[in-house]
């Protein structure tokens, strides 16, 4: 399978890339790792006339911690995120999530910016980004803006990004004291994508849950915060029974999507099961 013909640009700077996006409008598509875009171009589900390969722009990859936040460059690969020592210490949830994406070859190539921008309903990072309250930093013709993860994922394969905007980095908060986090995933046996993936960030105080943030991917058309679960967890001492009771709300208010592998009903069930697991694991890690 061969993609339809296109014109190829490899800009050296973000400014140059934005110029190309402005000039070519809807005909243009950004290329990062290519591990979502190229497969759909090979299937001719996408036939962009212009490819703007941002892979050679320097300064868009790497991980740095500045006080309360860790900034991750958009071109940072899943593999680099999985292995980074700073992230493992300051935001282990993201490293844990990266480690279960696809396979080693996919992680060597795929980028966090590409995954966020693609907004695949079965992608892994979105659950973690929502639970962490991450920020997505994008630059466009009108300058830089910071989009909270909660406003970023709009619909299946649709984000708040404008076609002329480029994600430059993502920011996640440093894990606070007394807080634990975990990502639990039911991978599709063939594709490896998340049938259901749940990220939990839980803060414990005096043996009780003080706050909780639960991000869920795979279940609905877009990733979401399971707010009913979060409410039900607060004030509880977390054990099998209390966690299961709260996790029963995991698919509340959403429309679970079914496919050949898992019906909507089964996905809703899995959401509860994996939410319970993620919550208990996160609570056990809260120190």
């Amino acid at each position, binding site marked *: 399978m*061969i993609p*339809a013909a*296109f014109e190829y640009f490899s800009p050296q700077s973000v400014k140059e890339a934005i110029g190309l996006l402005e000039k070519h409008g809807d005909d243009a598509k950004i290329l990062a790792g290519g591990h979502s875009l*190229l497969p759909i171009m090979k299937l001719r589900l996408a036939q962009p006339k212009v490819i703007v390969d941002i892979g050679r722009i320097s300064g868009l990859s790497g991980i740095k911690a500045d006080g309360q936040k860790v900034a991750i460059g958009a071109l940072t690969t899943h593999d680099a995120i999985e292995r980074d020592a700073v992230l493992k210490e300051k935001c282990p949830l993201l490293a844990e999530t990266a480690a279960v994406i696809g396979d080693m070859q996919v992680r*060597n190539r795929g980028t966090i910016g590409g995954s966020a921008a693609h907004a695949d309903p079965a992608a892994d990072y979105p659950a973690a980004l929502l639970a962490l309250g991450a920020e997505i930093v994008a630059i466009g013709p009108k300058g830089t803006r910071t989009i909270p993860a909660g406003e970023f994922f709009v619909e299946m394969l649709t984000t708040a990004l404008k076609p002329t905007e480029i994600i430059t980095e993502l920011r996640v908060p440093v894990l606070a004291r007394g807080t634990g986090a975990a990502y639990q995933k039911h991978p599709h046996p063939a594709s490896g994508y998340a049938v259901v993936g749940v990220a939990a960030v839980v803060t414990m105080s005096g043996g009780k849950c003080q706050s909780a943030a639960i991000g869920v991917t795979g279940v609905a058309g877009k990733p979401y915060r399971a707010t009913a679960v979060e409410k039900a967890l607060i004030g509880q001492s977390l054990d099998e029974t209390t966690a299961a009771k709260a996790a029963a709300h995991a698919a509340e208010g959403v429309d679970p999507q079914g496919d050949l592998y898992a019906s909507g009903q089964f996905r809703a069930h899995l959401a509860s099961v994996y939410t319970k697991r993620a919550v208990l694991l996160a609570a056990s890690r809260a120190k």
Partner: protein
Amino acid sequence: MKRAVKVTVNGKAYAHEVEPRLLLVHYIRDMLGLTGTHVGCDTSNCGACTILINGRAVKSCTLLAVQAEGASIQTVEGLATDGKLHPIQEGFWEEHGLQCGFCTPGMMLTAVDLLQRNPDPTEEQIRMGIEGNLCRCTGYQHIVNSIQHAARKMRGAAGRATPR
């Protein structure tokens, strides 16, 4: 419009003009004539097309040749040096790591990346490492044995043999 691409493959420099939509695997097979890199699924799943780019295993059916501009590439043809098999090839030979051999080049290059980063992997780590490579013949056990064989050999060669 064609684009110039310069790459080093198995230590040899190449320069070509290519269509931007040319996939790296087709560049390697059809333009360089290095047909040891296979096309299995063509949908990024089977790993038969795995090569090393700057030392890292990637699926060359999911990359454009133009994305490899300036890169150092290794394919299965570059594993043996001076007629001597690479330890991973020796492992597949000794432990019967292949039957039809279709998946083998990709398996070996994936294993090389894995062993570079983790010279002493557990069986589970090996199985997770080759998660992106499918084999229809062997049932994987002999592939795992082959990689373990290579790991022992490579640790020995580097003077880092750890007791088992």
